[in-house]
């Protein structure tokens, strides 16, 4: 069979047009994917190696805490808020308790405030160490995980020694903190609030945390592959970050010293000597670097705080049944992930009328469609991981 010139031209046109026509593919990542820190699903339109119109699908872990809080009493709600960001469960209690105390106009004893500060910073170290472990792993480096999680375990042991819980301490009481795990009832005259040897063990653990920061610094910041994967990738300018409500290290990496520990004056942070860490470029590397520096700052803060813990009571005088008078307020605090706040509406009852939970990861994650527009597929994981979210904090 002979092929004439027309057929040849026709066939070549067909093949050319087939080559030029690139078809978009829809890529589905998750909901069960190791880099999604929980159950997050991403639906992306993929053109070659680049992703467009990335839409996060969330809600797989929605537990309705705002509704549940309306049918619980105040002491019961601290158990709920522990479970919002479970990587730093203790830190979630602080803004809620502070909001209730503010409306009750309670003066929290200084010792209780110091204990709260120490434990909050421990929770921050734990949360950031999880990031130090998981982020390089998502980029393909497995060893930092072992360094980081080993030290995190030491800090968790200290937290457990004081509160009795590794992840869900439920240690705050309105007006103070609980006596230490196993030390007897609050009505006893002499209660032990910190376990024996706590100061000594904490000092040793913080020294080890500072050492592991140096190790991680060498291991990760000196790694060319990680630098190539993170430097200049996922740059978020300040104004975009602010309009999406990014907070915490994600916002500070873009160069703003937005740290609520300095701005809201809710725990005795002013009495300690520490610095707000800010980045310069707002890329994935800076977000990693900021968190590493924050671990160092928190460790130094704890070392100072345990030297300064005042003696005295750990609980303000409160009635047996907590009733918060009529009022409404918004209290926010610097959580490891960013701004966590509670808009609390009370009306004199045993429980609140309305609690709006403002969680950091929810706003941090909402920037993903913007940050991933046109990104390379491997960069999806790099950018997503650098935002350090926890799905419990997103879905509440």
């Amino acid at each position: 069979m002979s092929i004439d010139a027309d057929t040849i031209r026709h066939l070549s046109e067909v093949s050319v047009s087939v080559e030029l026509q690139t078809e978009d593919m829809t890529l589905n990542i998750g909901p069960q994917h190791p880099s999604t820190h929980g159950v997050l699903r991403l639906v992306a339109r993929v053109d070659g190696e680049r992703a467009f119109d990335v839409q996060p699908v969330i809600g797989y872990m929605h537990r309705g805490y705002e509704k549940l809080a309306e049918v619980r009493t105040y002491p019961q709600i601290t158990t709920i808020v522990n479970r919002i960001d479970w990587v730093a469960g203790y830190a979630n209690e602080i803004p809620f308790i502070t909001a209730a105390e503010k409306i009750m106009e309670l003066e929290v004893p200084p010792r209780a405030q110091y204990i709260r500060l120490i434990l909050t910073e421990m929770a921050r170290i734990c949360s950031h160490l999880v990031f130090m472990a998981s982020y390089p792993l998502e980029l393909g480096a497995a060893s930092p995980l072992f360094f980081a999680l080993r030290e995190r375990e030491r800090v968790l042991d200290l937290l457990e020694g004081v509160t009795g819980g590794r992840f869900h301490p439920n240690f705050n009481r309105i007006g103070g903190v609980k006596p230490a795990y196993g030390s007897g009832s609050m009505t006893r005259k002499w209660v032990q609030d910190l376990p024996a040897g706590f100061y000594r063990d904490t000092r040793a653990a913080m020294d080890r945390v500072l050492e592991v920061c140096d190790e991680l610094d060498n291991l990760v910041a000196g790694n060319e592959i990680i630098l190539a994967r993170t430097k200049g990738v996922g740059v978020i300018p300040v104004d975009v970050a602010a309009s999406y409500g990014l907070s915490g290290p994600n916002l500070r990496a873009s160069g703003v010293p937005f740290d609520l520990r300095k701005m809201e004056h809710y725990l005795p942070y002013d009495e300690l000597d520490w610095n707000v860490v800010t980045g310069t470029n707002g890329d994935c590397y800076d977000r990693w670097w900021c968190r590493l520096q924050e671990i160092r700052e928190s460790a130094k803060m704890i070392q100072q705080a345990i030297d300064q813990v005042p003696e005295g009571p750990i609980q303000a005088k409160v009635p047996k049944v907590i009733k918060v008078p009529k009022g409404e307020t918004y209290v926010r605090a610097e959580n490891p992930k960013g701004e966590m706040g509670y808009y609390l509406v009370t009306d004199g009852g045993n429980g609140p009328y309305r609690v709006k939970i403002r969680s950091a990861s929810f706003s941090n994650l909402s920037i993903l469609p913007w940050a991933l527009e046109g990104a390379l597929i491997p960069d999806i994981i790099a950018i997503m991981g650098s935002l350090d979210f926890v799905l419990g904090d997103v879905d509440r």
Partner: protein
Amino acid sequence: MTSNQSDVTSEQAETTTVHPLQEFADSVAAAVGGEAEITFDTVKVHVPAERWVEALTTARDDLGFGYFSFLSAIEWTNDPAVGYPLTDEVEERIEVICTVGDVFEGRRVTFSTDLPVDSPTIASLVDVYAGANWHEREAHEMFGIHFEGHPNLIHLYLPEGFTGNPLRKSFPLLSREVKPWPGDVDVEAMPTEGGDAAADEPSTENPEA
């Protein structure tokens, strides 16, 4: 003597105590044309619903509040199906609250506006603050507020096809319907063998005697 003294101090307190945030609150209220109220260090500025977007645009452009904290709503009702009732009679409404601030000094203001309980509708803030997108989707599904001009007003947390607005006070908490809480039914009786009625009674005999 003592009573006189306390009278004087309380009088002084009434006349001289100005909240440190009062000046700031007044300046924000004047700029956006709203009413300021300070409740426990939270500056709340109430604006009419039709000037919602305008007020937030002023806050962003003229007052430097580029940071979007959150947007949500409170349903004020005298007859809640769930939760603790209010002690005083209130005007039934849905109050939309939106907190914005600045990232350099940490100032913040909560803007609020009132919407009717039936078919609440308000203009969307997505063009002012990009972060409002998800917060408005959440308020839409949870309270049934319609945000006009929102590009993608679909369910965020709830599955498609879910009916009802769970954070409305009229929406029952089904698990509590089945089993009241908190209450004396908290502790369940141990199951008994054979269904003997007498076995349900707690035994007073010492089993080791």
